[in-house]
């Protein structure tokens, strides 16, 4: 463990705020450092809500601890973001904060854990109800009741509060989260973002001192995510609610949190200010013990600052690290680029290949009920060898469209043409020979008890020879790096490995089109990158077209050749991602956000028209543009 990277609580923030003078003297940057310091000093006097000392936790039946010697102090009013690769113990740490660990998720707890003045080992989960509110990733799994009012009242009813008081608090909680008038609505009528806000209201009604959230926006579209983050920021800012959360979507959160904790293999490896956290690259370990750069979950604007410093061969101080778009634009404007600055290497675009028409959709309409169509006259052509992103709000028809391509939803006759054949006339196996579909949850697709048999299954039902099956399975196991697990049960693999296995089961059939349904949900950025790297190799090797349903605009910007936007069942956009992100009205109406770097470059270009910089999609492209135009006049 890197000693520099493992500061004791709070000390790192103090140190980073005092490291040297600011590199540039714009007033806002000095103010930023001072306000961080004031916030920290104010926080020092506040009541301690979380006091962990030397906590080690081992689940029953496991040989190695999932938490190792954790010491953490969180005071009233803190907004703490916990980051780390999958399997590092983040969720276990959160579950410790209300006693679910060790009282529900059993195991051995060592060390001292005191939450809101109560010793965790001696306090039942229910006794934390008025102190700690927990919100989980999947709103559908945590919402118990079928009506909004019942869900928000549930905790207070359990606490035997008088009915009058419960109704008042229920109304207040719904008002807090921006859902006034929703009390009588059915849970089933709500969007994902609204459901998650109901979950927040349901725990807020008991007025907990500490709010703990485990990836609350993982299943939400950008609009839903923005709603939830806005509620959390308001709670922390206006009501001083202490928040501890695990979240992968840091771009929209970095400027709202007061502190970042990074974990690796069950231990805390960084604890300090967001600027300190995002000022330097470190490495941690993934669930499969591979090395993962922490920068993979940094905000894109912080990545930009690091790239800018690297290109300029200058040191980046924590105070200079931007956390939001406005700060990044300020940084680009104020940063002095020396004459010896070098352009950064950019990945070469994939070689142009001859594109063959693969699939065409003509005037496709579909709905379960005649009066509420899900897809309306969709027209679309897909060519071979492309990576295409399908975007849109939850409920816009993305999954329905994708499922029609593999015959899960029956396509109307003549609406979808696959290589000259009418898709509606093909059987499931014939379609599956050409089109693969990787579901959100890999577990749903497993049909055998062994990894290699799982990959061989699709070939066996298509009557391939034993030699051909053995050859292909071996080949694909190598591509997805699962050779060493070939005799293991699919369910015993880690989530990342299971995801790779589900891709492998499709890959082995060498499909012409592979559909990925939300490949990044519940996965950290690094894992999503690995998956997309695999897709790119697949395209290179077999000329496969990848159609990915996603909300992750950074992934789209980095990997997609083409973007499709579905809005209320209609294709609202079909073109290059850079054109999509330039259309602010479309993004707004489709509930999408542009990647931060696109916004930074767009705003910088508007502020400095003489530099002639155009909006770009990657940090390195922007740095190169800044380096190339450094001599030109600017405001």
């Amino acid at each position, binding site marked *: 463990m890197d000693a520099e990277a493992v500061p004791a609580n709070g000390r790192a923030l103090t140190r980073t705020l005092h490291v040297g003078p600011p590199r540039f003297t714009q007033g806002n940057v000095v103010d930023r450092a001072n306000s961080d310091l004031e916030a920290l000093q104010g926080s020092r006097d506040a009541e301690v809500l979380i006091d962990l000392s030397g906590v080690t936790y081992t689940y029953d039946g496991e040989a190695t601890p999932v938490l190792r010697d954790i010491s953490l102090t969180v005071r009233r009013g803190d907004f703490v973001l916990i980051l780390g690769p999958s399997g590092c113990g983040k969720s276990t740490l959160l579950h410790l904060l209300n006693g679910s660990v060790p009282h529900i998720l059993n195991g051995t707890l060592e060390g001292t854990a005191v939450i809101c003045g109560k010793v965790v080992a001696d306090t039942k989960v229910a006794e934390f109800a008025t102190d700690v509110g927990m919100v989980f990733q999947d709103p559908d*799994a945590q919402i118990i009741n079928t009506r909004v*009012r019942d869900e928000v009242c549930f905790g207070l009813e359990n606490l035997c509060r008088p009915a009058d008081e419960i109704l008042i608090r*229920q109304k207040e909680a719904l008002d807090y989260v921006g859902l006034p008038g929703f009390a009588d609505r059915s849970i089933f009528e709500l969007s994902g973002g609204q459901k998650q806000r109901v979950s927040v209201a349901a725990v807020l009604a008991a007025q907990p001192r500490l709010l703990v959230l485990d990836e609350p926006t993982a299943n939400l579209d950008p609009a839903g995510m923005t709603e939830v983050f806005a509620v959390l920021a308001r709670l922390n800012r206006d009501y001083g609610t202490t928040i501890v959360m695990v979240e992968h979507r840091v771009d929209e959160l970095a400027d709202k949190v007061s502190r970042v904790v990074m974990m690796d293999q069950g231990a805390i490896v960084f604890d300090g200010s967001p600027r300190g956290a995002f000022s330097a690259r470190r490495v941690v370990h993934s669930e499969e013990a591979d090395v993962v750069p922490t920068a993979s979950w940094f905000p894109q604007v912080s990545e930009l600052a690091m790239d800018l410093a690297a290109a300029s061969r200058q040191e980046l101080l924590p105070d200079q690290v931007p956390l939001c778009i406005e700060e990044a634009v300020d940084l680009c404007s104020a940063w002095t680029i020396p004459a010896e600055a070098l352009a950064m290497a950019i990945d070469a675009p994939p070689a142009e290949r001859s594109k063959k028409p693969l699939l065409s959709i003509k005037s496709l309409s579909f709905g379960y009920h005649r009066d509420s169509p899900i897809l309306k006259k969709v027209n679309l052509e897909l060519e071979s060898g492309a990576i295409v992103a399908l975007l849109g709000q939850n409920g816009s028809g993305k999954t329905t469209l994708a499922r029609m391509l593999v015959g899960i939803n029956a396509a109307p006759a003549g609406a979808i043409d696959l290589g000259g054949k009418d898709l509606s006339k093909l059987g*499931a196996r014939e379609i599956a020979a050409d089109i693969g579909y990787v579901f959100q949850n890999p577990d*749903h697709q497993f*049909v055998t008890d062994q990894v290699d048999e799982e990959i061989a299954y699709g070939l066996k039902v298509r009557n391939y020879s034993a030699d051909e099956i053995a050859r292909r399975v071996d080949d694909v196991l190598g591509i997805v790096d699962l050779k060493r697990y070939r005799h293991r049960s699919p369910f015993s693999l880690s989530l990342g490995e299971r995801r790779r296995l589900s891709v492998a089961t499709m890959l082995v059939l060498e499909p012409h089109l592979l559909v990925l349904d939300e490949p990044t949900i519940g996965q950290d950025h690094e894992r999503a990158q690995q998956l997309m790297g695999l897709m790119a190799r697949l395209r290179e090797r077999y000329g496969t077209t990848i159609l990915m349903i996603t909300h992750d605009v950074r992934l789209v910007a980095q990997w997609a050749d083409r973007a499709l936007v579905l809005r209320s069942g209609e294709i609202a956009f079909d073109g290059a991602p850079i054109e999509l992100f330039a259309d602010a009205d479309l993004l707004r109406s489709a509930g999408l956000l542009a990647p931060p770097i696109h916004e930074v470059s767009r705003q910088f270009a508007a502020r400095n028209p003489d530099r002639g910089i155009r909006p770009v999609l990657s940090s390195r492209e922007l740095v190169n543009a800044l380096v190339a135009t450094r001599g030109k006049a600017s405001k």
Partner: protein
Amino acid sequence: MKRSNVFQFRAGRSVFHRLDPLSKLAWLVGVSLLAFGAYIAWIQITISLVVLATALFLARLSPLEVVRGTWLFMIACTSFFVIQSLTLPGTTIAFHVLSKPIYAESTDYALASALRIYTIILSSMVFVRTTDPRDLAIALVTQMHLPYRIAYAFFIALRIVPTIEEEIQIIRAAQAVRGVARKRSIAGRIGETKRYAMPLLVGSLRRASMMVMSMEGRAFGAYPQRTFVDAPHMGPMGIAVSVMTLASVVAWYTALALGYVHAIYVFAPA
């Protein structure tokens, strides 16, 4: 957007939606008792029509929803009717089918039997569609004095059924993409179930664990009693429905016992 399940509660403002759960439960039990006791077709037709009218007018189900929810049972009941009509013995010939005599007694009994099944299915659908499982659980606690932990276990079980059903559909679709063909034989179906079981079990355990944490984290089970906001209570309408149902059941079985009920064959000989 997902296909909605017809056998699932949907909020509404119909007369039946406004009725308390225990009155509806009494109605459902009463209809079932009447249906089980009625072996004569005209009685069964009357009960079926009353239940159908209840579904359409008092529960505000659309005819399409009724058909969507019960079409499988319609096919089953029709088959049942045809087979019984052709095979049961009788004495009074009603008509001939391909020179085979069809007896009035057998068609009457077959019709009563088929409609009995349909009536119970339709009345269950009315109950499920108009009753929030939570309200039913609360009514069992506040009106029947069932311990609330048991009532909530019952509620959660009902609440989770559509979710599991949805997950099975996803697993089926996911496995169909792998090339798994649906089997029609019993052995094939058993094999299919085995394949679904593991992913379903893994998903259900994860979900159950999440629900437990969500409930306990909000003080569920912390005290022997709990407050119920909006606990349903039996109003005048509920009392009227319950009394009428009870009176009908008592009258019907009394009439049966005293021999006042006589068959009037629906398929009487020409």
